[in-house]
């Protein structure tokens, strides 16, 4: 199967080309965040303090993950995706500010799918539970905000050929619905 290489930061054109079911390899800088970090970021946005965000979401990718602790001598602990629906209440605000992609596992809400259509963003699924393997794609890692949140702090990762699949594209397509239709036995 053909794999598409993406390098951050991403443009509208980069993500508009993507279609559900395609495999992509992500390269470059990505940011992490889970529920607690999202709540803080969206609170800042709502308070009009966009310049205080840990990073400018424009053209960027956010990865929903809470890594396990780093063993000495390693770049990062195991770090597979967490279930994305918990970030659904916050995601549209970030897409609105130019976020181009989020990475997680599991279904997104209609509101998030709509926001991706409107603001030209995609949702990519990393392989849930393949955390030891994914850690190998991460070449450097540092905490850039909210260290008090522990595993939930915002990290900046530099990744190389991090594999994932396009689940929602800018046309509103949803692989979780379409995939089942293809393989269901009627």
């Amino acid at each position, binding site marked *: 199967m053909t794999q598409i290489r993406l390098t951050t930061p991403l443009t509208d054109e980069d993500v508009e080309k993507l279609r559900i079911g395609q495999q992509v390899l992500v390269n470059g800088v990505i940011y992490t965040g889970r529920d607690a970090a999202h709540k803080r970021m969206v609170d800042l946005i709502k308070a009009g303090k966009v310049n205080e965000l840990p990073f400018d979401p424009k053209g960027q990718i956010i990865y929903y993950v809470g890594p396990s602790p780093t063993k000495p001598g390693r770049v990062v602990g195991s770090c597979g995706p967490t279930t994305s629906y918990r970030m659904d209440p916050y995601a549209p605000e970030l897409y609105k500010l130019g976020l181009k992609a989020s990475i997680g*596992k599991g*279904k997104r809400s209609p509101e998030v799918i709509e926001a991706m259509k409107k603001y030209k963003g995609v949702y990519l699924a990393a392989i849930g*539970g393949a*955390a030891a393997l994914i850690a190998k794609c991460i070449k450097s890692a540092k905490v850039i905000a909210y260290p008090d949140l522990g595993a939930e702090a915002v990290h900046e990762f530099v990744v190389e050929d991090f594999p994932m699949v396009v689940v929602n594209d800018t046309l509103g397509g949803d692989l979780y619905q379409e*995939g*089942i239709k*293809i*393989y*269901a036995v009627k």
Partner: protein
Amino acid sequence: MCQEANFLLGEDVMEAFKKGCETEVSNTGKEILQILIKNAEIAREEQVPMCQDCGYAVVFLELGQDVHIEGGDLYEAITEGVRKGYTDGYLRKSIVGHPLERKNTGDNTPPVIHTKIVPGENLKITLAPKGGGSENMSQIKMMKPADGVEGVKNFVIEVAKNAGPNPCPPVILGVGIGGTMEKAALIAKEALLREIGSVNEDPEMAKLEAELLEKINNLGIGPQGLGGRTFCLAVHIKTYAAHIASLPVAVNINCHAARHKEVVL
């Protein structure tokens, strides 16, 4: 024990992945299963957790009635073991002390401990770290006796459908039928401990397991919910006597990171 459970994936799960690679009809699905095999190999060789969610430490104790424990509190000792295992092993601490206040306890304690008194003079400890993603998609329903086996089947299939990609499929389903509400949930979790590929002792339940497995995989959800026929590696059913008025059914979902480790003392 905590570390081993998190680093080493059971052979039965590996076998099931390999079988899935052969039978899976979706190419993406096949590739995912291969990646999961590779992931388990990396975890084993490099002694790192196969999944970043190192789970809630669920402990099953089978305490022989002739055993006398000296030198302290057994539950304290287990808690201390979990604390040490998760801290020294660089495992993720995923427990908050209060469900509403939500402050992390910092050492993955307390564990959830289920104790059974059995004949004999052994103490068997089974540790089954349980991931949140798959636990969250589990469900229990107090059905009517009139719903019968058809009702049970529909409910189990519904739970699988509803879970979709969220519990990191391929999954294992533990189904507890009967008892009271908490008993159904407990036997559903116990059912997850059974080896994949083993056959239910009750021939009727073995048939039901096979039928459910086929029907659920035919939904087309596939590995990671991206489409395919390997959503579920096994359905394990456990039953218990029920009240004349009740038919409780619990479905506990375990992800492919189906970790458990057993010792007998």
